């Protein structure tokens, strides 16, 4: 949309108006090229629907925008955001949204108590840059989050983020089902396991395998990659790590400061981090929660598949494999 202001509209702030472009994970909207603030209209619909949780396993997810995590929202520091929240007609409960990027009561939650078939609206100004979690905060809030009602909103600093070659959206979540891990069919939510904090599944982007096979993230050797990593919880803290990579920079907790040369970064439930690294060599790089049983047994595994020329000066791959004589150790 253009930002035509005629000068007649004196009551309105003379901000250009634009519709926010939302993306489903693992995609991220393009960087903001504007040099000044705008009024950004966000339209988000809350949808309850059965989707895949693992092979042969489905779950009745509650979502922002039909995906887990919900649609990625990208705005700029100083923007005024007019937020329109819809709750689809076939939803069976009310929902709302608490955006951690909002300064104001409930982060917007009190303004967006939205019944099925209804819509609500509120406006906020993005005062602080950073990467923020949003989530549903309706009672019982744990259940709404456990069912997948969370996502990320990026507030770019005024000067923007340094350009990179690839940006991706990855969000961890823990899920609690009546059946054991792998038990087939539509799995109901287990309140007992949720209260006890014993998840059946811990996954990236809403299902086991969402970031593997066809869904793997891709890059070319030499690319600068930025991951927007969130943790919806509801319970677990993530020890986020990419096997075979070192994060050049981690904007820990989604804030403005960065740490350099990081192996594993802690992402709190209801928190986020931006991690940046350059892919030097080709290969499959595995995204994990380094609380590693979650990766091996509960699904917290994704793949970044990097194409390109081998660089043996950086990494050779295997140079030798064979037996060594028992006596060689000279014991």
């Amino acid at each position, binding site marked *: 949309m253009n930002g035509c202001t005629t000068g007649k509209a004196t009551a309105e702030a003379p901000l250009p108006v634009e519709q926010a472009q939302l993306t489903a994970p693992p995609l991220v909207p393009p960087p903001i090229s504007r040099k000044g603030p705008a009024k950004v209209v966000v339209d988000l619909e809350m949808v309850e629907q059965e989707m895949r949780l693992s092979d042969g396993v489905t779950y009745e997810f509650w979502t922002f925008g039909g995906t887990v995590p919900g649609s990625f929202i990208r705005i700029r520091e100083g923007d005024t955001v007019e937020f329109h929240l819809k709750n689809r007609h076939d939803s069976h409960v009310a929902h709302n949204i608490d955006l951690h990027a909002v300064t104001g009561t409930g982060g917007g939650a009190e303004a967006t108590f939205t019944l099925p078939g209804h819509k609500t609206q509120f406006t906020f100004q993005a005062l602080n840059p950073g990467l923020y979690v949003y989530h549903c905060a309706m*009672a019982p809030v744990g259940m709404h989050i456990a069912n997948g009602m969370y996502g990320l909103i990026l507030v770019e600093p005024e000067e923007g983020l340094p350009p990179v070659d690839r940006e991706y959206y990855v969000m961890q979540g823990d899920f609690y089902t009546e059946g054991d891990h792998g038990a087939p069919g539509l799995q109901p939510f287990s309140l007992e396991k949720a209260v006890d904090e014993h998840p059946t599944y811990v996954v990236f982007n809403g299902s086991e395998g969402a970031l593997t096979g066809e869904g793997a993230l891709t890059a070319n050797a030499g690319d600068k990659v930025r991951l927007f990593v969130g943790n919806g919880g509801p319970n677990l803290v993530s020890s986020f790590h990419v096997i075979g990579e070192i994060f050049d920079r981690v904007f820990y907790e989604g804030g403005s400061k960065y740490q350099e040369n990081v192996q594993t970064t802690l992402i709190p439930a209801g928190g986020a981090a931006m991690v940046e690294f350059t892919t030097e060599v080709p290969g499959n790089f595995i995204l994990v929660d380094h609380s590693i049983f979650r990766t091996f047994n509960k699904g917290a595994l994704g793949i970044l598949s990097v194409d390109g020329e081998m660089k043996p000066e950086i990494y050779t791959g295997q140079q030798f494999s064979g037996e060594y004589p028992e006596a060689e150790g000279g014991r």
Partner: protein
Amino acid sequence: MKGKGSWIPLLCVLSTAVLANEYVPLPGGPFHSSLRFGNGGDKGVVAGYQLMSKPVREVEFLAFVETHPQWRRDRIPGLFADAGYLSHWESPLAPHPGTLNFPVTRVSWFAADAYCRARGARLPTWLEWEFAAAADAHQTDARDDADRRRRILTVGTPGAHRAAGESEPNVYGVHDLHGLVWEWPWDHAGMMAAADNRNVDTESPLRYCGGSALAFSDRRDYAVIKRVALLSALSARTTLFNLGFRCAKELP
């Protein structure tokens, strides 16, 4: 608005016709609500009352709008119902023939209240609804049964995909309190009021994270929490595809 209407004494016609939606007596008694009331009402006593054994069905509501045309969807003032009121019917006097025995939904509190008053009854209070809904087929208060709790939370209330009265009745003979539709209580608007007043710093305890735990005396009864969160959001003219009602009245 919520004043008592004239209570027309019902000349009870004993009929076994399929259409009959009978009232069953509930004895009342001491009852712990899962909802925390500021005045201590969560540990109160529920007086005896009668409750419809099933939610009001479309065929019954049709009979009502035929005789009370001011409640037809094409005549009802916007003050008393939102645009969704009976919008799923084929015409103002024609529900879908296949769903005549489904619970009527997309009715506002005003319409539900008018229906019950026209039948010499009233909407049940939340506490009366909760008292009846605590029972299962074997005991009057089955809320501690973990399996049942799990089941109730799982079936949720997807909304009237079957006829009313097909589920097993509870010990009082009441059907469908769980797993069919949400139901209007008389006092939906005041449900959280007491808790609000007591906790001035958590003005709207259900509306966001932190406060909501304060509103419930049983924080593991998620089926009730889900329901109350929805009911407390309703205004009296709201209609939802999965929100119906049943009526109550005093014991004879």
